[in-house]
């Protein structure tokens, strides 16, 4: 049986084939799924916030888009992945509720998480080959390290494979 590894909120992990990495109930958070097709090594991060900059307590690298991308690549390389063979798929970044009242910087956090993730991946020169982001609904994702498929489950919006 394949090993299923759970990744929590503000958390990340890596696996070799045939391992499956999963993270449940993504809202405004973004799942960053990296995959080395040659070595069949996968990495999955569940980030909460766009940037570690200007945040005092930023020691948890898995919490922020910028640091999570870097750290996830490092961890995959330690398993034998080659950065030139890594591609990315991302999912999440929804807006669960309409913020009608407050005009704070957490407005549109989902959108900002997606933008920051794409920017971090671009800076790391990792091509983004698929994404399923936005909307106002939650997502659960599974990354299959056997072939790099990212399975996205929703409530009422069906199941997708990207």
């Amino acid at each position, binding site marked *: 049986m394949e090993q299923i590894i759970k990744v*929590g*909120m*503000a*958390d990340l992990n890596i696996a070799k084939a045939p391992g499956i990495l999963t993270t*449940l*109930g*993504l*809202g*405004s*958070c973004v799942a960053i799924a990296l995959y080395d097709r040659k070595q069949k090594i996968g990495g999955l991060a569940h980030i*909460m*916030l766009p940037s570690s900059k200007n*945040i*005092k*307590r930023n020691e*948890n690298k898995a*919490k922020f888009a910028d640091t999570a991308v870097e750290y996830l690549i490092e961890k995959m390389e330690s398993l034998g992945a080659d950065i030139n063979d890594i591609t990315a798929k991302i999912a999440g970044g*929804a807006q*669960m*509720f*309409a*913020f*009608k*009242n*407050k005009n704070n910087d*957490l407005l549109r*956090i989902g959108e900002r998480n997606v933008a920051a993730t794409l920017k971090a991946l671009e800076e790391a020169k990792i091509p983004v080959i698929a994404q399923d982001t936005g909307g*106002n*609904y*939650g*997502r*659960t994702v599974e990354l299959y390290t056997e072939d790099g498929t990212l399975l996205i*489950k929703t*409530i*009422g919006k069906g199941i997708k494979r990207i």
Partner: protein
Amino acid sequence: MNFEIESLDEMYLDVLKEIGNIGAGNAATSLSKILGKKIDMAVPKVNIIKFNEVEEIVGGADTLVAGVYLEFTGDIEGTIMFILDEKSTENMINILLNSIWVPTDNSKNKNTKGLSEIEASALEEVANILSAAYLGSLSTLTGLKIMHSVPDIAFDMLGAILSVPMIEFGQFGEHALFIETELSDGSDYIKGYFFLIPNIESYPIILKSLGVV
């Protein structure tokens, strides 16, 4: 006062529990009146939750729940979440609308159930009334001015819903602090969770207003 969730002492936690007690007591009475049913509340809990342990609160992060979200502003700010599990959502709608709850989608697949506009609106109104009751007693107790927003509902995965208030705490550390009270009719027929989630800046103000710091 330097307020750190990770280093709260027992006395502060007791004070926050007492806030939950008084607020939720009032909310339970309101809910009881709306539903025409006896509603009890459990002893409030002050939950200090690590982000990756969200499922320890109500159920799995991908459990289907109804979550109503409100914001409060004034002397203190924060959010309120009222969470109902799937069964309770159905039961509460039955009582409120006095009709048989018809899933709007394919009824064979539980995961495709949605709420109709009137169902969503009824649950939002319940959360609205409970929040007014809760915040009203908190305001009386502390002398702080607190107003709340209109509610918004999602019928979706628990993790996705709770991530909204949790993200606010993400800037300050690895934990979120929720004042949780379970409201139920004593069986599993109606079981809801009311979370008061003040912003981290609001805690010192609350504690000060009560003469604790």
